[in-house]
């Protein structure tokens, strides 16, 4: 009787859950987003998935029994000898295939993980001056309320700075798809995305724009960032103006320390 109920389901569930997770990753990242997860990273995820699922499936003695029951039956039941022999050759053959593939020289380049928004230094030296990033604010921001007309002019000036200097990479729609974006790695950031400037303070942007890729700390791989050091080309005023433009065009609001 119990035998009836035990036939495959528990084991099949296990396989389904693990296979489903893998398939899900594949569906979402490879097929839908078109951005496959690197193999090594995927291996790591799947390891945790398998361990986690096994832990759940063997949480109680009963569930463990349900899981290993069919396997044990396969090994011990003389009536299923034939099936056993098949399984016993297929499993090592699969393992051998795995080893074979694993040992092929890999084409996959080393993974380069980088922190996109590293912690900024508390103060930086730019334009020969020290700036305290914790308290630094955009000197023009208050004009948004106090003098909207002058504010619009400053935004327009920022737009000129942007189109002359930034659109090649960040795109004239500020979506990170400038004409040369595809030739760069890491790709220029997409300011329309809620994960970039919408999350940041204007002082952070000031630091990032003024010091560019080379100004990044090590965990953010400064050696591959193509973001130029704008301190060399723009004035302090122009950097604040272009920051106004980035927020104005995208409609995002800068994060602020205080309460407004």
């Amino acid at each position, binding site marked *: 009787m119990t035998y009836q109920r035990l036939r495959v389901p528990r084991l099949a569930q296990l396989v389904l859950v693990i296979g489903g997770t893998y398939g899900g990753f594949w569906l979402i990242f490879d097929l839908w*987003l078109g951005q496959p997860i690197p193999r090594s990273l995927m291996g790591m995820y799947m390891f945790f998935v398998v361990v986690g699922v096994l832990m759940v499936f063997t949480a109680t003695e009963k569930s463990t029994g349900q899981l290993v029951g069919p396997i044990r039956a396969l090994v011990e039941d003389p009536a299923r000898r034939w099936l056993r022999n098949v399984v016993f050759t297929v499993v*090592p053959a699969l393992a*051998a295939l795995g080893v074979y593939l694993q040992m092929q*020289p890999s084409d996959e380049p080393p993974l380069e993980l980088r922190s996109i928004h590293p912690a900024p230094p508390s103060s930086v030296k730019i334009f020969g001056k020290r700036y305290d990033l914790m308290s630094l604010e955009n000197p023009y921001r208050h004009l948004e309320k106090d003098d909207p007309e002058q504010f619009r002019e400053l935004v327009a000036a920022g737009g000129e700075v942007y189109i002359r200097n930034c659109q090649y990479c960040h795109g004239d729609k500020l979506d990170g798809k400038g004409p040369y*974006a595809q030739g760069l790695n890491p790709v220029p950031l997409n300011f329309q995305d809620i994960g970039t400037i919408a999350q940041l303070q204007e002082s952070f942007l000031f630091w990032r724009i003024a010091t560019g890729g080379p100004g990044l700390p090590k965990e953010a791989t400064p050696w591959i960032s193509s973001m130029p050091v704008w301190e060399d080309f723009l004035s302090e005023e122009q950097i604040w103006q272009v920051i106004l433009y980035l927020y104005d065009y995208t409609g995002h609001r800068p994060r602020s320390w205080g309460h407004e």
Partner: protein
Amino acid sequence: MNVQQGSEMVNAARRRRPLRWRYRLARLPVWLMVLGATAGMPALAAGDADLGEEIYTQRCMLCHGEEGDGMGPAAERLNPPPRDFTMAQYKIRTTRVDEIAPADADLVRMIHDGMPGTAMPGWSDVLSDADIQDLTAFLKTLAGLEEEAPGQVIDYGTQVPVSPESIAQGRELFHEDDRCSECHGQAGKGDAVKKLKDDSGYRTWPRNLTKPWTFRGSNDPRDIFARITTGIAGTQMPSFDDPDSEGRLSIEQRWHLANYVNSLEKTEKVVRPENTVIRALRLPGAVPTEPDDPLWQQALPSTFMLVPQLIAGERFFTPANDTITIRAMYSEEEIGFHLEWDDRTRSIPGEEAAEKIADPGISEDRVAIQLPVALTAGAEKPYFLHGDSRHPVNLWFWRSGSAERPAGVSLVTARGIADRDTRDAAEAGLTGKGSYQDGSWQVVLRRPLMTADLSQDLEFHEGTFIPVAFSVWDGSNSESDSAHTLTTWYWLLLKPPPGNAPWLFAGLAFVLMLLGEVWWARTAQRRQRS
């Protein structure tokens, strides 16, 4: 938008693959509209010019200018420059040459899809169809076309389907009296024999027809037919259906030409952003020394985008070259790189023919392979732009030579774009050779795998991922010193042959597992019996 653009991923390792079907689907509505207009149907409702002006001010003015004259603040840094809308000249149109006005669908399409190979993006992701109608209405007011009836669409006749015969006829027409090859070159790569300027005096280059992803229109024969028929307004690309011209061709001839142009695509020169590894092929014999040795074709090509150096020092915004294709092979002793890039001009200072088509101040064409002087243990690399003070790079240069000195190689150690030491290339064993044909440079650079001095040069070992980058100078496009194009870091891999080890270990795994299973089954059965 097209294969040249598009990617929003922030992870450094992976990029979006070109999803061609998606891009095709996205174009479908516009195609339907174009077809609708062609059939003479009133497919488009007129937009509202006032609403269009608002969108224009927000989205287009910075490039196309406050007055719509193309004189936005970035104009001199863009090549081609933004269109001057006051001239009523549109490159991509389907109305006859003698018509003043384009079809509304033409403008709608350009705004919707953008113009590949230029700064003009497609707007379909941020603007609705109604917005685009409004913009179209507004753009027409800038050219005084608002009262003008839409122009009469060209006669497509009956389309000649693509076939080897049609392509052969097209090839003949292309070369007959240098009809098209005069400007587009023998191989269609746009290698110039004369200096072309557009109506506003900007330097223009005939399109490289082997790279149809840079067409402002598309590579569809129907589109190419329209370009040949209407010409490209404001540029030297003539109409071949101009009633006033002797060069007028029949509809059928134009279809043959369109089919031929469509057949020229060189797919190995498409940039595939997911490909970041150059796989060097191991040869049983020696690495070939000649650039046109057919053996090179056996190595896998990797094509990378060339980005203008708009990052540091004296910046450069108007490149002429767009991609470089790399192949690599190695023997027991040597590694060789085969670099191929389309360059419309062979720049030899002092040579009359070269000077004539070059921009003033011609210098040699150059290419450089950039490698770290030493590999670092962690993920750290030299700064991608010619290294930095702590992590120098070696640049293997090849230059095209001038009337005074022959072409040759040189070796430079750089610590950033301003800090360079020239070294003795012969001592390091660096050799090279280049050849120019029909609009492409092919250059081979070779060096022994091993080096005498590890503190100065990297050694090449199988199985190691080695960072590698490239820079290109087009001497006829005023490119010299820090004005050039470059790639970011990619990887070079000398892929070792797998050998017997995988078979051995796979066999071992099989046997061990089988033994384990047998033991398991035995003990289990014994336990059961007892």
